[in-house]
């Protein structure tokens, strides 16, 4: 008998012994493994994908989708960009004016001041609910003859900045367009449906358009949120669309196979961790090219409307402090910055600005590790001012 046969026999003997001495434990493990097997191989063939999506999203996300479509959320569906700020909303510190901008002096809009800036980007630019309007980056600009309109919108990625500016925001005739970008907004370039990329964003189960790069040219893949989200989760067409166009669809497919039962879910989780780790070492040149093309398009569009563009690369707390395992992994923030700089754009490195201030991390970042505290916004605004002055 070979070694492997002996090993098999030994395992068999141990299992028999376990069955005899601990029948309950044996039964629990056996039935659990059976469940895992059924979940892995049988259920995905029997249960429709729409049902899986319903489980994947949870009732909270499905409710959030319907509230969004009915216009009850703080963001409204938008056929160009997926969503946009709802005008005239005030929740504590967070006040959005009639134009959908977060500005300190909303009444100034329309007067066309000598110096007007518009800010585009995600909630990092918007400032989030933790700071007041006058404590955002744009807020520190307002006053005197400068008017700053903050159109930063939750979960916006770079393509949505381009779309919103191209379709709507250029009408404000700003002299300077400030675009905040971060690693998450770059990751969003390959994503249509937010929950596929970030399942934890339960309150933002929204759909967005995206660009793809074909023969060096940007091609828009539009979405119709009102139509495509209307029947969520029972919309097979949405699945076809996402399967073809969303790079993160595989994540959902993985959930269908390995998301329902704990052991397979743990294996899937471990796989994704390893995959994420690999991403630190393997550059995603496709996304990098797409990013440069989108940024180039923003600059071109702005130039057509007589504006110049300044990009602000914004780190999260993790990318800023680079503690723990981050300190030994390649610096994705630096790499993204390097790529952007290779495109000869006007870029401010917010991490450098914050590091030079020598302020403690807790004074710069909010507890969520993403949004900035007023001090950080002020420091970035100062760096931006220094950049803008020579232009004007």
């Amino acid at each position, binding site marked *: 008998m070979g070694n492997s046969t002996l090993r098999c026999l030994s395992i068999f003997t141990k299992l028999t012994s376990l069955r005899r001495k601990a029948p*309950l434990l044996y039964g629990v493990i056996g039935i659990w493994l059976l469940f895992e097997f059924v979940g892995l191989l049988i259920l995905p063939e029997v249960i429709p994908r729409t049902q899986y999506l319903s489980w994947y999203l949870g009732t909270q996300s499905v409710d959030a989708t319907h509230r969004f479509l009915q216009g009850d959320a703080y963001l409204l569906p938008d056929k160009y960009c997926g969503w946009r700020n709802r005008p005239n909303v005030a929740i504590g510190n967070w006040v959005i004016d009639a134009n959908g901008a977060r500005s300190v002096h909303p009444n100034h809009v329309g007067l066309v001041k000598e110096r007007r800036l518009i800010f585009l980007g995600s909630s990092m630019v918007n400032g989030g609910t933790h700071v007041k309007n006058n404590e955002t980056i744009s807020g520190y600009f307002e006053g005197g003859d400068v008017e700053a309109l903050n159109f930063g919108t939750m979960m916006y990625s770079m393509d949505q900045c381009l779309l919103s500016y191209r379709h709507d925001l250029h009408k404000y005739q700003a002299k300077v367009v400030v675009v905040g970008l971060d690693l998450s907004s770059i990751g969003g370039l390959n994503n249509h449906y937010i929950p596929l990329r970030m399942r934890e964003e339960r309150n933002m189960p929204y759909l967005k358009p995206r660009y793809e790069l074909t023969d060096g040219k940007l091609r828009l893949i539009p979405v119709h949120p009102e139509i495509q989200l209307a029947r969520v989760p029972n919309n097979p067409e949405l699945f076809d669309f996402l399967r073809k166009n969303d790079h993160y669809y595989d994540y959902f497919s993985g959930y269908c196979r390995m998301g329902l*039962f*704990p052991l397979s879910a743990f294996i899937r989780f471990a796989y994704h961790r390893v995959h994420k780790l690999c991403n630190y070492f393997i550059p995603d040149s496709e996304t990098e090219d797409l990013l440069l093309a989108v940024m180039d398009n923003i600059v071109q569009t702005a130039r057509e409307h007589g504006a110049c563009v300044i990009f602000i690369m914004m780190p999260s707390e993790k990318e800023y402090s680079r503690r723990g395992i981050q300190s030994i992994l390649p610096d994705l923030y630096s790499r993204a910055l390097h790529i952007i700089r290779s495109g000869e754009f006007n870029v401010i490195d917010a991490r450098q600005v914050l590091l030079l201030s020598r302020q403690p991390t807790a004074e710069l970042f909010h507890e969520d590790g993403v949004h900035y505290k007023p001090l950080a916004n002020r420091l970035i605004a100062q760096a931006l001012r220094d950049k803008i002055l020579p232009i004007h």
Partner: protein
Amino acid sequence: MNIPVLFILFLSVVFVFYWRLSKLWQNLLLSSVSLLFYAWVDWRFPILLLILTVVNYICGNKIAFAQSDVSRKTWLFIALIASIGLLGYFKYANFFINSYIALANSVGWHVTNFEIQILVPVGISFFTFQALTYPLDLYFGRSKNTASFLIFITYVTFLPKLFAGPIARANNFMSGLSEKRTFQIENIEDGCIRFLTGYFKKVIVADNIAIYLVNPVMISPNSYSSTTLWVAMLGYAVQIYADFSGYSNMAIGSAKILGLKIPENFAFPYLATSFSDFWRRWHITMSTFFRDYIYIPMGGSHKNALRTLLNLEFTMLICGLWHGPSWTFVFWGALHGLYLAIDRYLSKMTNLIQWGSMGAGGRRFAVVTRWSYTQSLICLAWIPFAASTFDTAILYLKAMFINESSEILFLTPPVLLGFGAFIVDHTYGWIVTKWPGVERQYIHARAMAYACMIILLYHFVPDKPNPFIYFQF
């Protein structure tokens, strides 16, 4: 502090080396890792624990070797003063100060408010009582043998029961520590199943009911309809049971995995048909502690009726106060003292009725009636226990009977699952009480149930755990 994770880490660290060691090294490993983990929660906590351990160990040994009764009494007195004094200072100093200030101000003396900044070590009520059982048992003659300091410190510091019991008696637990523990798959099986059951009770039953039902209602009871308040009251009864018995199960399971035995703490208390029956099923180790060390030494039920009543009431007042520095707990204890007194005399009266002559139907009617009023009063008593102040408790009770709001809190699937699991748990308890040993015949059904629990755990664990209720005690 995530207790299940802490337990799993503790077991993982200990388990690797435990079985290869002699009993001496096993105990050394258990006590040192327990102390390290306790220090991990807060580095200052082990200091008080060690002081209590040393004091009670010395006093216990002095009692054991004392030649005269006076000497024995003196050493017991020292142990009691030191232990209860430390417990009193750490847990009750501010309570008594505040009560004194409130009383003084109410009679017209103007006393300025002040509080002492005290860091209360987690589990102080539990480990103080456990350490005390050593000198107490030696004094009352329940134990004849002294133990080595290593065994005693291992007993007091044993992590799984450190935070919230069960209150294991020194002589029982230390007898397990004085033997070498060997790896037995039966113990691992039993321990794992107990741990799983406890974890399920805590996170699926207690936490879901707390987060989605009890906590919102308790914040502003008058904003909800009467129906919601009644359901929330039942929810709290289930929550506190699942929370504490869940912890006890995890502690018992962890000990079992390491070849040690911790006494049972719960025996399906909501099946109780009388208040004395309830206290034989609820927090058993605490109720037996009060019975053996307070109620019986005071004379128990061997004195006249009035004295018995006073003994009961005093014991339950202390029991209430033990739960926390608040008059609502004292009231809850007093209420249960009253319940027990009524129960005592009611049972004498009902015994006069010949239920047996009414046949099986009559007996069943008697049981159901007793069960109904017992459980109704127990559930009502949870309201002052759950409320932070008397005002909230009164507001809650008032709103239960006078419907001032039509706001209904819909029961979400996790809450329904919690209630469902509780019903299954108590039905199982009823079956195994009625037909002992039946559980051994249905191993496959049980295995299926436990496997389902694993899967439900994966899906229904709330994002944010609710803290253990008994940690505040």
